[in-house]
């Protein structure tokens, strides 16, 4: 008898990770990120512990920056929800960015026409308009996927570039505000502006909208037969098909809902923050939505928490930059590092170490 292989440590796949693994992931991810980014912080001549204090704790200590966290997390919650519908169904919609702008264009168009029309009419119109616009923009890649099996990752991503040029064309052409030196549209009607939740802050109705969308996501996914169909299709297409679920129809519907909700994120930014259309309405909220949905494990409350955390990190990056004079980009580096570490952890939790 001859054993051809010496025992050594191997990663073995396990179906049942122990219950304590999951809560440990964010903690470990944070520690891992801290270690990795400390090098950069040291290079920027700052103390990593100080930096992380300003980054993660200082913004929680005063009301102004607390509200700012909520403001910053609003669009992230909405795009996170949007992406979750698609990803849960196994449709990898990377086009929330373009769909967001589609919604923003619709909101601006409707908003500019709302002079003299009460808010009770104007706001629903804008929200519905933004939803439909996002849906329309999501329709082409979704049809290509369902009818011709064209990879949606490529098509939804490319639709983002197309949208960027459409926005630019609109702002330099028909909607260019003659009173401004910049390519931006005229302001929307005052009645079309989302009302403030707290006076003299930027926190507005958009945040309420985001929370409502999260609650709806939770109800749809856990309580409705459509939610179960989406999850079945996303987790096991052959089994879903076998059980008689109309796989393509489910994917198409999820893709359209996803696009529509991303459109609402655009509405919230126009009506709540900018009041007109500019080319830089979103610094990549659509893409961050993918990160939020993934980090939130496609769970409604996970998405909410991940978005709040990203809002904190973004606010913290500014606090940090002011306090220690380090580049604000450290915030972005940290976000990206944290994502990679967290994804690595999510992957590794399915394995155990064994000597064999």
């Amino acid at each position, binding site marked *: 008898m*001859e054993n051809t292989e010496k025992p050594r440590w191997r990663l073995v796949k396990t179906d049942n990770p122990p219950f304590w693994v999951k809560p440990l992931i964010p903690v470990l991810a944070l520690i891992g990120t801290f270690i990795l980014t400390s090098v950069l912080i040291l290079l920027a001549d700052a103390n990593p512990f100080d930096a992380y204090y300003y980054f993660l704790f200082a913004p929680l200590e005063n009301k102004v920056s607390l509200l700012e966290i909520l403001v910053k997390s609003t669009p992230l919650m909405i795009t996170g929800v949007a992406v979750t519908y698609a990803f849960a169904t196994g449709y990898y919609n990377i086009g929330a960015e373009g769909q967001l702008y589609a919604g923003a264009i619709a909101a601006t168009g409707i908003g500019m026409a709302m002079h003299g029309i009460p808010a009770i009419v104007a706001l629903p119109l804008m929200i519905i308009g933004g939803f439909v616009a996002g849906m329309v923009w999501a329709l082409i890649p979704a049809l290509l996927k369902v009818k011709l099996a064209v990879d949606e990752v490529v098509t939804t991503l490319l639709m983002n570039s197309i949208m960027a040029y459409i926005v630019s064309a609109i702002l330099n052409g028909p909607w260019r505000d003659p009173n401004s030196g910049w390519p931006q549209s005229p302001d929307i009607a005052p009645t079309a502006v989302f009302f403030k939740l707290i006076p003299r802050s930027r926190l507005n109705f958009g945040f309420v909208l985001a929370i409502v969308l999260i609650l709806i996501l939770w109800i749809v996914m856990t309580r409705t*037969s459509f*939610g179960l169909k989406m999850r*079945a299709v996303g987790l096991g297409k*052959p089994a879903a098909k*076998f059980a*008689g679920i109309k796989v393509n129809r489910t994917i198409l519907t999820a893709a359209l809902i996803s696009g529509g909700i991303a459109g609402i994120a655009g509405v919230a930014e126009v009506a709540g923050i900018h009041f007109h259309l500019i080319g830089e309405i979103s610094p990549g909220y659509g893409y961050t939505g993918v990160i939020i949905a993934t980090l939130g494990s496609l769970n409604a409350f996970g998405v909410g928490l991940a978005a709040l955390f990203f809002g904190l990190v973004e606010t913290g990056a500014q606090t940090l930059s002011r306090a220690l004079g380090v580049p604000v980009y450290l915030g972005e580096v940290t976000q990206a590092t944290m994502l990679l570490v967290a994804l690595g952890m999510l992957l590794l939790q399915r394995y155990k170490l064994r000597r064999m």
Partner: protein
Amino acid sequence: MYIVEMQKVTKIFGELVANDHVDFQLRKGEIHALLGENGAGKTTLMRILYGLYQQTTGDIFINGEKVTINSPKDAIRKGVGMVTQHFALVPPMTVAENVVLGYTDSFVLDQAAIEKKVGEAADQFSLDINPKSIVRHLSVGQRQRVEILKALYRNAKVLILDEPTAVLVPQEVDSLFETLNRLRKDGLSVIFISHKLDEVTKITDRVTVLRDGKSIGTVDTVNVTQKQLAAMMVGRDTFGVTRQTEINPDNKKILEVEGLCALDDKGLPALKNLKLSIRSGEILGIAGVGGNGQKELAEILSGVKSPTSGVIKINDKNLVGKDPSEFSKMGMGRIPEDRHEGVVGDLTVYENLALEHLDEYSKNGFLDKQAIRKNAEELIKNFQIKAKPSDKIRTLSGGNMQKVLLARVLSRQPEVVIAPQPTRGLDVGATEYVRQQLLEQRSRGAAVMLISEDLDEILSISDRIVVIYEGEIVGTINAQDATPEKLGLMMSGALREET
């Protein structure tokens, strides 16, 4: 001295013993068949020889020298080449590039030089291939020739062919056999894995039969008949199951299939003009070696695959063109062939149990969680499923997973039950349970189709047996008249019997 000798080779995967103290000897210049049913351990044994697996225990000798083979690279160095069922070729590259791939000594690739070299090798072995052809443009038979050339180019003295004819049309089979005969004259030793008796008797010098991971024996091909080989391959007495009561011939035909034709995933004909019917209270066994159209038949009858032509009727209502949910509404009880593709592993037991009839378990689009849970608890109790309703399906054992699938289907009292390979991979207890359930469906008056590669299973519970070979029905026998030998012959295409 043998060119290859394997002594007491055992391979264990988890709890499955794939090879159990197998002895195997290969002479120089012979074509040696490794014969056995699916799952007998033929491919595993050869994968060990080719370094794809390592044996748990046992020794391998090449030219009398004890060797350790850790990888295909080791095997090739020792003169062993293998052509697997799935070719390892790069379609956009030329034949020459594919042949030298991973076997070049210089950094710079001189296209003309390798084409010349590969061309010479092809001539030397009389393999008709143009080294400049792009592999993508070649037929399956030609690709197989490229694979053989690839092995010979690497100086293989022993060539393992894993079911080489499975993918070929008859003419290509003839040409392959000519090639093998020539190579044998040149002194090459060939191991020919197969379960087709006619081919084995036609081309090989000796045959080693494997059954359930054990070697049954090695015989000279000239000294045996196909019948004897079939007996060695299946080699069991019929089970002592007492036949159930005869079915009443007046019972209504519930399922009728006529003129059914279908293509497989590669676009080749998988079912050819199939005609069969099942009466109420009858179990029809579909016997056959895997890959002869059973998978396609099950998929079509489940509504997940469309036939190219033909009629499927339940109680005279045609089902062709309907979707899976209409199939089940019209009384087709569908058990999936691949358990893992029939359940959503990351959903819970109660969700999976409701999945096929969601419209019944929801009101205005909202799930009726109470009804779903109640249904799950009842089925878990009635079908003795060892699980909690909220367990994720993927944490269940194979037997319990199968019980979930049975429960989902049988609790609906379908008129027809399609059970493809329902006990594959299950332990003895679960297997008994599944067979018992099928018998109960029979006494309830359902028409049951049992598709199985396990002859014991077919023989012990079927009323009538249909044998399928290369997508055609080659015989229909009443279970009383069936013997394993007769079925074995029919399954290997050596005997046809129309009744």
